[in-house]
């Protein structure tokens, strides 16, 4: 080992920070080199002098009391039996559970919204049907009214046609319109239809 390298490693050698092989190399060189040996001795003495004459501040008791007071105000998050790893997994699990709950909540909301839409559709259909029935009823009524109101048609009404009209009007809640006295079908409607054999 050369003196330059030896001098560079003197401090680390004194602090026992060198590896085994490096330390052996240093020892061998120092055994045979007076200059480096004197250098090492001077360095060691300087450190001893500094360490012996350094002012050291002593710890005052109030310091711990202040620390303890602040610690008690905000205690550390305890690891407990779970440990750091367990705490991490627990937080992940909690996040997952929260996400799952949110997902279920959204799904439930969507289901309810769908149910509402379906109910509204059913209501619309029922309303349409009702309207259709109403319109049909009105159409029948108006048709009957036209039949009744057209004497020319009434004059040519055959008994069969009369019986059809009779049946329809008897079942029709608006049949009172056909029972007008001026209606050519009026008497036919109030009488029971005669059977075919009696004609």
């Amino acid at each position, binding site marked *: 080992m050369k003196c330059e390298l030896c001098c560079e490693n003197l401090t680390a050698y004194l602090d026992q920070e060198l590896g085994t092989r490096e330390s052996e190399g240093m020892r061998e060189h120092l055994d045979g080199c007076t200059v480096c040996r004197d250098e090492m001795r001077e360095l*060691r003495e300087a*450190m001893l002098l500094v360490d012996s004459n350094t002012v050291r*501040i002593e710890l005052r008791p109030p310091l711990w009391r202040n620390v303890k007071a602040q*610690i*008690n105000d905000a205690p550390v998050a305890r690891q407990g039996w779970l440990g750091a790893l367990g705490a991490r997994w627990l937080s992940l699990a909690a996040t997952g559970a929260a996400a799952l709950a949110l997902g279920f909540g959204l799904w439930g909301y969507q289901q309810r919204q769908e149910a509402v839409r379906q109910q509204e559709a059913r209501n619309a259909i029922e309303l349409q049907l009702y309207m259709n029935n109403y319109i049909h009823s009105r159409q029948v009524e108006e048709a009957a009214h036209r039949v009744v109101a057209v004497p020319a048609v009434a004059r040519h009404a055959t008994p069969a046609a009369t019986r059809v009209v009779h049946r329809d009007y008897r079942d029709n809640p608006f049949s009172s319109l056909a029972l007008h006295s001026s209606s050519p079908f009026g008497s036919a409607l109030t009488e029971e239809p005669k059977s075919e054999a009696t004609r």
Partner: protein
Amino acid sequence: MATNRAASGEGGPDRELLVRWIRSAKKGDIGSYQRIYDLFAPKVLNFVYRMVNSVEEAEDLTQETFVTVYRKLGSLKDDTKFEPWLFRIARNYVYQRYRSRPPAAVSIDQIDEDGHEITQLVDERKTPDEAFQARELEQVVEGVIEELPEKYREVFVLSALQHMKYEEIAEVLGRSLASVKTDIHRARLQVRKRVKDYLKV
């Protein structure tokens, strides 16, 4: 042959016991944390003092350090690396507070500029002359350390006064082992140059 690392008289619990205290403190055991505090607070206090040159500020920053350490203890992954982690937090506090403000000049009197008495280890076996010389040496050493460039002062205090391992110092400073080793050596050479006249060799 070795420096006074081994002769420093620094005792303390072994690593296993320290790890046990740390684990207890993580679960909220204040008693264990106080043991940790008693062990490391003097080191932190003196390290911070070397960086800020004020006893009052050093106490304040030490206090903040240990409150933060307790609160963040759960984030320490490797309990065996507690000391470098602790000093890293202390160092961060020093630089946060003093980034824009240079450290105050060290007082050569026994009362520092904050009005606190600088505590000394008094050796009653010394004669008056010896006591005077000792006091003079202290002042010289204080001046030498204070005048070191900040980069060298840090590594010097941690290695020569706190006796930390180079690897731990590298962790505290966030630097490579090689660069820390180089700076420690350069710091020691500067100190040796300044105190050479006082050496007995």
